[in-house]
């Protein structure tokens, strides 16, 4: 986008103010770039600070020396504690709920897309409900029910909760991708002797691969990031990584180095993944935006 206005060559005797304005006009792009970088550094400062804290040796944890010998001591301390187990719990629940939601949700979204039946509104309503209602409204009934069903503090219980939310999201996100795959391609596959299922697997799915990947990643991120459900529905056996951090804050106090290391580990997968699927994030996080 061209946004500069070139000053006319024969501007008569530019006033001081005017000439400085032209200077701004001419260097607008560069100024914008510099502003962007400065702002980015400012915004990401707390984030970077936490990461560097996790490598700082304990005696220097409050230190300011930019040059310090990085240490993995905090990470090693985490490794020997209860943290790896809860990290694993986080992985299991997030992966399981994502895979299950995809396995159930993707064919459902396909069926909805091809049925021509206008049920989008109802789906949108369902998603809206799971998204808008405050989590506390779900946790109280889930907690009470799980006590009777013996599901509290189990991985299965947590997976079920995440599945509820991810399923709605998968259907919401995948349907437009399937709408975008031309029917003619599938019909061609049928004529060539594929069954409906085979045509779906061999033609439609590969064509919507980017959508599948993005949806799965967003489901994973949302389950991975969850804190509230995990806090309420687990205690020790099934506690996930975010809850584990809070637990050892409560037991050992604010041991900054270890907390920083744990925080860094927990956010690592999310940061990597989200940059990969940046372009789909809006739709995923704004799921339920009927007006979009």
């Amino acid at each position, binding site marked *: *986008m061209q946004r500069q206005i070139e000053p006319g060559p024969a501007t008569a005797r530019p006033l001081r103010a005017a000439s400085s304005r032209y200077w701004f006009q001419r260097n607008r792009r560069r100024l914008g770039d510099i502003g962007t970088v400065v702002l980015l550094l400012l915004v990401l400062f707390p*984030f970077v600070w*936490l990461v560097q804290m996790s490598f700082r040796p304990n005696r220097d944890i409050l230190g300011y020396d930019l040059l310090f010998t990085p240490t993995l001591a905090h990470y090693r301390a985490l490794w020997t504690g209860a943290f790896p187990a809860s990290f694993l719990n986080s992985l299991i629940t997030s992966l399981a709920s994502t895979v299950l939601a995809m396995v159930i949700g993707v064919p459902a979204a396909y069926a909805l897309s091809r049925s021509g039946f206008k049920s989008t509104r109802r789906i949108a309503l369902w998603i809206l409900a799971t998204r808008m209602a405050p989590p506390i409204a779900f946790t109280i*009934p889930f907690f009470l029910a799980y006590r009777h069903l013996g599901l509290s503090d189990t991985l299965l219980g947590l997976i079920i909760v995440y599945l509820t939310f991810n399923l709605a999201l998968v259907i919401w996100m995948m349907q437009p991708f399937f709408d975008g795959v031309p029917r003619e391609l599938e019909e061609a596959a049928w004529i060539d002797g594929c069954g409906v299922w085979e045509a779906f697997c061999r033609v439609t799915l590969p064509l919507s691969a980017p959508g599948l990947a993005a949806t799965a990643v967003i489901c994973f991120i949302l389950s991975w990031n969850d804190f509230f459900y995990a806090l*309420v529905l687990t205690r020790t056996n099934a506690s996930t990584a975010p809850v584990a951090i809070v637990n050892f804050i409560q037991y050992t106090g604010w041991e900054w180095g270890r907390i920083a290391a744990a*925080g860094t580990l927990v956010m690592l997968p999310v940061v990597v993944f989200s940059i990969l699927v940046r372009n789909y*994030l809006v739709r995923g996080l704004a799921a339920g935006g009927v007006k979009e």
Partner: protein
Amino acid sequence: MITIAPAIYLVLTSLTPLNLTLPDTAWDFSAPAGNYLDLAEDPRFTRSVWIQVKLSVATVFLQLLVGLGVALLLNGSSRIREMARSGFLIPMVLPPIVVGILWRVMYAVDISPFHRFMAFVGLPVPSLITDPNWALTAIVIAETWEWFPFTMLMVLAALQMIPASPLEAARIDGANDWQIFRFVMFPYIQSTLVVAAIFRLIDSIKAFPLIFVLTDGGPGDVTEVTNYYAYRQAFTFSLWGYGSAIATLMVAGVFVLSYLIDRLTGVAHAEAD
């Protein structure tokens, strides 16, 4: 079904004085409105609603402002700005608990670079999160930091849909930057801003991890929003019936709110057409 069942269970529970330490209270419907009557006279509940309103209004407003500003800055087409978009995204995708820890570090007087710097230049600032007058502001800052990328992303997407010709026409006609923004760009992104505001408003009602890590509702109860109050009643004091009643009211509130928004924006759209 899986969404409706918990809702029904929640409403039923809210009609009982359920307390898990007293087994008899489970299905006791003798005083169905008891919890709600108590709520009406509970000053802590009323206060929590008021705190919620302050938190929501402030964070949504600031997020829109910052998000819009950053989006306008990033709307250029240089490589640096393209790359910066991913960077600005980070706060939004971090696990909320980590955001809480980040800001806990920033607000801890003995460790925060900000506080240490202020002390170094001779202007020591007391910790925001332990000061009753500033604790809510501290939450607002952290919450805005976490969620401005959402508005930013939505506005950026909308900005890129603006056709180039009206912009050029305005520039040729001699419009300055502000006029271009106000009269050419703004009408295109207006509805996006409304949608972003609605999402953030509804989400702000769920604020939990930040408050949990930063202030735990305190000092006193100055940052105890309704959501947090319900959590405390149910999970700390084991007053499930009472907690459910608050949660039911919250759900009702969210629905009324979205209905109103739907009506209002519907009217706005009709007028714009």
